[in-house]
């Protein structure tokens, strides 16, 4: 008889974690799929099975015959060596270069791995003052470089042009501008901190004194800029020292997610969240926001608050701190808000000089003015916020100025250098497009995508990727950082610096005239001839004081110039100026049932739409909703249930005259009467990855700088859309998967996590991999020499993990993991080796919390409780069990254990029975249902007049011919074929190369051990929170040994005895006793049964 393992029953009165509302409601479809490793639809019925068996025999018979013929000849393979040596190039070894990626208001310092001249993988630059992990956008940007649908040729009104023609058009525009000293010239720039760019922009302004410069970013903070300028003065940049702040209050500022603040890296914040010994010293985060963000998930106290009321909340805080100007606004506060804010502000006051209040960049000037006044009262300036003096930049007009200039006919030639797409994301973009064509404005657009602006512009010039060009940037603290090319421009694109040089007549765009010898992988043309290179060196000479060659070489090597941060600003903040903004603020009305608010936020996959054609990001699930490939309207449980909506049901949202139809999803932790829409979707023409996915939420925005739209109408439509949500896939059944406790709990019993569930009663798991050669014991019956091997292990600190998806994308980039497309995601075939489990929890709900017999179905939390649900994240990949259930069921020994403790996977042995996936309690194994690498899963093919998904067309489908995507592949990892299982291997290619590198050093000695903590996995390297520790358990000095010795260490599903090598550190929260609802926070399931 088949034995069915029963997980021990867990009492019902404790806090429970649930993955989705479907699990909470015990919906039938969820329960049906719970026990399956893949959702239904993957198994065949009797008839199909019979048919496919016959098919199989037919095909096998034919192919055996063919095999005989094909194997007669040995295929001829050539070796093509370089004709000339390439400096530093050792065939078969990767080269690392430092560079930086531009991002709004700063730079992401990077180290790029290149293989024979191809950049393949990005990681943070550990030498840089703001280095460390990187976010998923930066991690995925290497794929943009190889995007086969990137803009490759200049275009004029949607038609391809030659480079010569494009140069002519540009030259005539320049000549025109010269005649009129730029009177009809307008330039729109993004929010760039590049000193060379700023310098050239100033030169353009000198050359064409009448030219007008504007700044526009789709998700930019115009209000923040205005308030900062008035309060701090021109060119002064606040720099938040997250590491020094012990009390942080965020007013809808997702500083851990898509709304980063200029300041210390995230790891400075998370460092103070992890404790190993009893302590009172831990930072505390308060968050007010309308929807769940990553920051909200990390909060110790969080209150869902409508975005319209954020100014009121800011005013309340300011008023409590004695700002009289805020009083009027504060008095409009709704019931309950003051009770929440008062104890929080008291806590901030108690920690004066160590507290900071942050506001979301999308809010208006009045919020930022209030926050400046608050921070000043809290003594934050010079302690938790440093004011830095940047060099004065050219005066830039706002978007409203741009509209006025076009309408007034002052601009006839408009050069768009911003990453935003004016005809797509500008407020009232359609009106802008009409205005531009009515006024006969010549739009010159520079960008990497063939988006709607590129197609409609009079002239579109392909932009170069930042990995292809010379440039420079100022990091958030002002450190001068270099952007250097890793590869010659694939499609001759021009960088912004080069466009400005072209406007100044110093550079001709397009392919170099004297074609360099086309040796494969040859170094780019001598940089000395590159105008951008010269321009950057000129800027460097100014920044560094002189053009010191040795300094320059160090800068290019390290990626930044040492000691080049901004100086501290001398002037104190002028808080009085803030009052003006506050006085102008309109009193906000709380949203109501009839007039809900609409909140527009940047998306965690496509940001403002610029990453729309990046397949890795599209498939990386949203950290909160777990939605892939599109956007949806997030609606709180109260409103969702009041409207009687179903998951994915379309709603029509009307703001003013404009309406959009978009699927709705229920979002626990979301405030009622508020709808969150993520931006960046619904684009056309950008390519097969990004086109036609989701709905364009920019359409609702009519005024620049507004992201909170009040007075919306919502209408329920009958259609239910199919969404690719990963939250109910690869679920684990089990108890006490996620463990957390408050600081108090921890101080009472530091090892609380090790006693949670039944862990306190089961015998300790002793590693199988201990013992010395010849010394036989029960654990080591063969006397094998395990201590003379590396013993790899991993520890993930849930106190630090913020739940972003950087590790998923890093793993995808390092391990050649394919994307599968929305259709396959719906079928549960996501290939990502790491999945980020997101759980919601509500403490103590129901009629009677101690009533043991209460069941899920009749004891559901109320929608109001769902609104206050807590959210936690748990990254999960293969746990590398020492006693791995997958290994024992493999009929062909394709998955076996290595002496260094890895659960190895030999792809070429795997025959695809999927027994291992079936037997994995962590559901960490992935199966290649199709040849995702050979056939593009995103397109449809026509077979016999029928339209079918390309994957299903079999040999009739289109083969993938995207040469460029292949260039991104890591040559040290096998590209898997159809029909094999794959999973996390702890980046075994990195481990093996580290061991081999040590062998090169070891030679004829005994010193075989890889130097302590020198080898890092891709996820560990990418983690911006530094939550992942990896290393050699047999090396007592290593960080992993210390991490595993933590009292918070626990193993997932320990009671089933798999002895995983990956373990977790329980999460700590630091609630404030005086806050309402503090007793419910992180009530760990204190059942020790």
């Amino acid at each position, binding site marked *: 008889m088949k034995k069915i393992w029963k997980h021990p029953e867990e009492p019902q009165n404790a806090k429970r974690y649930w993955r989705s509302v479907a699990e909470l409601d015990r919906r039938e479809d969820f329960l049906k799929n719970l026990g399956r490793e893949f959702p239904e639809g993957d198994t065949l019925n009797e008839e199909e099975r019979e048919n496919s068996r016959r098919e199989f025999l037919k095909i096998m018979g034919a192919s055996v015959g063919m095999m005989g013929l094909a194997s007669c000849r040995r295929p001829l393979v*050539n*070796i093509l*060596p370089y004709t000339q040596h390439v400096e530093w190039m050792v*065939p078969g070894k990767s080269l690392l270069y430092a560079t930086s990626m531009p991002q709004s208001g700063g730079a992401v310092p990077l180290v790029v791995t290149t293989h024979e001249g191809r950049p393949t993988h990005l990681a943070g630059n550990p030498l840089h003052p703001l280095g460390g992990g990187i976010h998923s956008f930066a991690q995925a940007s290497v794929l943009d470089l190889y995007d086969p649908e990137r803009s490759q040729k200049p275009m004029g009104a949607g038609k391809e042009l030659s480079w010569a023609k494009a140069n002519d058009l540009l030259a005539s525009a320049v000549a025109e501008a010269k005649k009129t000293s730029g009177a009809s010239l307008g330039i729109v720039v993004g929010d760039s901190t590049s000193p060379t760019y700023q310098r050239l922009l100033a030169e353009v302004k000198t050359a064409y004194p009448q030219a007008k410069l504007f700044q526009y970013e789709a998700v930019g903070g115009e209000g923040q800029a205005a308030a900062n300028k008035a309060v701090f003065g021109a060119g002064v940049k606040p720099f938040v020292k997250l590491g020094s702040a012990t009390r942080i209050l965020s007013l809808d500022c997702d500083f851990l997610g898509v709304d980063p603040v200029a300041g210390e890296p995230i790891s400075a914040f998370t460092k103070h969240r992890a404790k190993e010994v009893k302590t009172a010293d831990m930072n505390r985060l308060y968050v007010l926001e309308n929807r769940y963000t990553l920051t909200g998930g990390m909060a110790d106290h969080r209150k869902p608050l409508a975005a319209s009321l954020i100014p009121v909340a800011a005013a309340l805080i300011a008023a409590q701190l004695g700002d009289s100007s805020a009083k009027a606004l504060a008095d409009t506060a709704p019931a309950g808000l003051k009770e929440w804010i008062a104890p929080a502000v008291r806590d901030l006051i108690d920690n004066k000089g160590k507290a900071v209040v942050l506001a979301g960049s999308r809010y208006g000037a009045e919020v930022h003015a209030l926050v400046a006044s608050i921070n000043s009262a809290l003594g934050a300036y010079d302690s938790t916020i440093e004011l830095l003096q940047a060099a004065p930049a050219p005066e830039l007009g706002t978007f409203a100025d741009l509209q006025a200039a076009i309408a007034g006919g002052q601009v006839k030639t408009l050069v768009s250098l911003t990453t935003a797409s004016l005809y797509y994301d500008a407020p009232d973009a359609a009106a802008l497009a009409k205005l531009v064509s009515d006024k006969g404005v010549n739009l010159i657009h520079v960008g990497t995508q063939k988006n709607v602006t590129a197609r409609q512009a009079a002239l579109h010039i392909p932009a170069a990727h930042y990995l292809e060009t010379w440039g420079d940037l100022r990091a958030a603290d002002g450190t001068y950082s270099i952007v250097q090319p890793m590869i010659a421009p694939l499609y001759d694109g021009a960088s912004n610096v080069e466009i400005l040089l072209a406007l100044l007549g110093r550079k001709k765009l397009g392919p170099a005239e004297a074609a360099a010898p086309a040796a494969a992988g040859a170094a780019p043309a001598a940089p000395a001839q590159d105008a951008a290179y010269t321009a950057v060196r000129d800027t460097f000479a100014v920044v560094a004081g002189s053009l010191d060659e040795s300094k320059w070489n160090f800068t290019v090597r390290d990626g930044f110039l040492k000691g080049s941060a901004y100086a501290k600003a001398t002037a104190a903040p002028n808080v009085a100026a803030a009052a003006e903004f506050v006085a102008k603020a309109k009193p906000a009305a709380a949203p109501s049932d009839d007039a809900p608010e609409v909140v527009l936020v940047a998306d965690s996959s496509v940001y403002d739409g610029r990453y729309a054609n990046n397949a890795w990001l599209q498939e990386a699930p949203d950290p909160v909703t777990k939605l892939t490939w599109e956007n949806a309207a997030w609606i709180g449980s109260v409103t969702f249930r009041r409207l009687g909506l179903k998951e994915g049901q379309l709603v029509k949202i009307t703001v003013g005259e404009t309406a959009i139809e978009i699927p709705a999803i229920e979002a626990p932790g979301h405030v009622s009467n508020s709808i969150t829409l993520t931006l960046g979707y619904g684009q056309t023409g950008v390519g097969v990855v990004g086109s036609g996915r989701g709905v364009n939420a920019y359409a609702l925005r009519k005024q620049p700088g507004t992201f909170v739209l009040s007075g919306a109408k919502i209408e329920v439509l009958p259609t239910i859309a199919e969404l690719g949500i990963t939250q109910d896939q690869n679920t684990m059944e089990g108890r006490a998967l996620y463990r957390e406790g408050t600081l108090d709990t921890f101080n009472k019993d530091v090892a609380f996590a090790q006693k949670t569930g039944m862990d306190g009663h089961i015998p300790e798991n002793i590693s199988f991999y201990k013992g010395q050669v010849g010394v036989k014991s029960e654990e080591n019956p063969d006397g094998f020499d395990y201590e003379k091997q590396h013993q790899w292990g991993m520890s993930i600190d849930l106190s630090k993990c913020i739940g972003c998806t950087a590790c998923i994308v890093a793993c995808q980039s390092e391990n050649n993991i394919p994307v599968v497309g929305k259709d396959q995601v719906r079928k549960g075939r996501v290939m990502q080796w790491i999945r980020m489990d997101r759980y919601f929890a509500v403490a103590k709900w129901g009629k009677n919390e101690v009533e043991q017999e209460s069941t899920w179905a009749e004891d559901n939390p109320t929608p109001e409780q769902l609104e206050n649900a807590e959210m936690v994240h748990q990254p999960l990949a293969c746990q590398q069990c020492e006693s791995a259930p997958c290994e024992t069921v493999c009929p062909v020994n394709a998955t076996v254990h290595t002496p260094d403790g890895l659960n190895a996977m030999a792809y070429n042995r795997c025959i695809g029975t999927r027994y291992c996936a079936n037997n994995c309690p962590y559901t960490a194994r992935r199966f290649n249902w199709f040849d995702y690498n050979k056939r593009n899963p995103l397109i449809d093919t026509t077979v016999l007049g029928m339209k079918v998904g390309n994957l299903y067309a079999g040999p009739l489908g289109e083969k993938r011919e995207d040469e460029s995507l292949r260039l991104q592949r890591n040559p040290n990892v096998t590209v898997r074929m159809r029909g094999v299982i794959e999973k996390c291997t702890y980046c075994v290619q990195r481990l093996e190369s580290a061991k081999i590198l040590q062998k*090169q050093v070891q*030679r004829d000695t005994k010193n075989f051990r890889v130097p302590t903590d020198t080898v890092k996995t891709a996820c560990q390297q990418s983690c911006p929170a530094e939550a992942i520790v990896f290393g050699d358990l047999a090396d007592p000095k290593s960080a992993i040994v210390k991490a595993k010795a933590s009292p918070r260490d626990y193993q997932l599903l320990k009671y089933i005895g798999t002895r995983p090598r990956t373990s977790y550190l329980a999460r700590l929260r630091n609630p404030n006793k005086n806050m309402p609802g503090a007793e419910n926070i992180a009530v760990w399931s204190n059942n020790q049964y």
Partner: protein
Amino acid sequence: MGNFFPRWTNWLPLKLAIAVVFIAFGVSVGIAYYFTPKYTRVGYEPTQPVPFSHKIHAGQLALDCRYCHSFGETSSHSNVPTNQTCFNCHGPGKGNIRSNSPKLEMVIKANETGKSIPWVKVHKAPDYVYFNHSAHLNRGISCVNCHGKITEMEVVRHDQPQSMGWCLDCHRNPEKNLRPLEFVTKLDYKAGDLKRADFYKALLDKKVPVGEIATTIAGAGAKAENLEQVLALAEKTYGKDVTQTEVGTQIKKHWQIQPPESCTACHR
């Protein structure tokens, strides 16, 4: 009814059974030999675009392998040299040796056009095999162990089967092939040519405890306190000449050679 079958058919089933056994055996032996790399690879000797002779360069002139294949000790891949390496001797203005020989025509042309010489690959590991040259060359495995005596080949020939079983044979018993590092590129090295005193002195110079050397020679319980005693012990155990087993076991023990046998060593 008469006899349908003649008498001789009585033995037919047995004869058939015996024949089947022989045929099956023959087929198995045939497959085991002809369908494996021992037969399919060994002896592969494609014509190369440039008639470069290893026999002249590495054999007669005794150029070290690493003069051309310069990155074998630092990289997974042992590179094929660039034209510049050829021109160090043959190039105009450098050695100028036989620089007008028609055999060099293609090299000179490749240098002018920048188009690589299409050398034909002889030793090809499958895509899912990640062989690493540096791991072997730095740890006492010689070129000759996998490539044969290249110094005697006019055109390079596939000398060893290089099948997975063949790899594992050595990974399980590395002592059969290990040699001191200075002889890694000496393809005609024989353990017997070593001077026993030099070999053990080198080990002692590397601070290997003398007692351990003794136990490695003659098993637990063997004792030695100085070089002389070690030499005496070795001569007693292995005979007058140095043997490969003697060198191999010492190196394996004292360099801590533990060749991986797990899948991940070569498949990732």
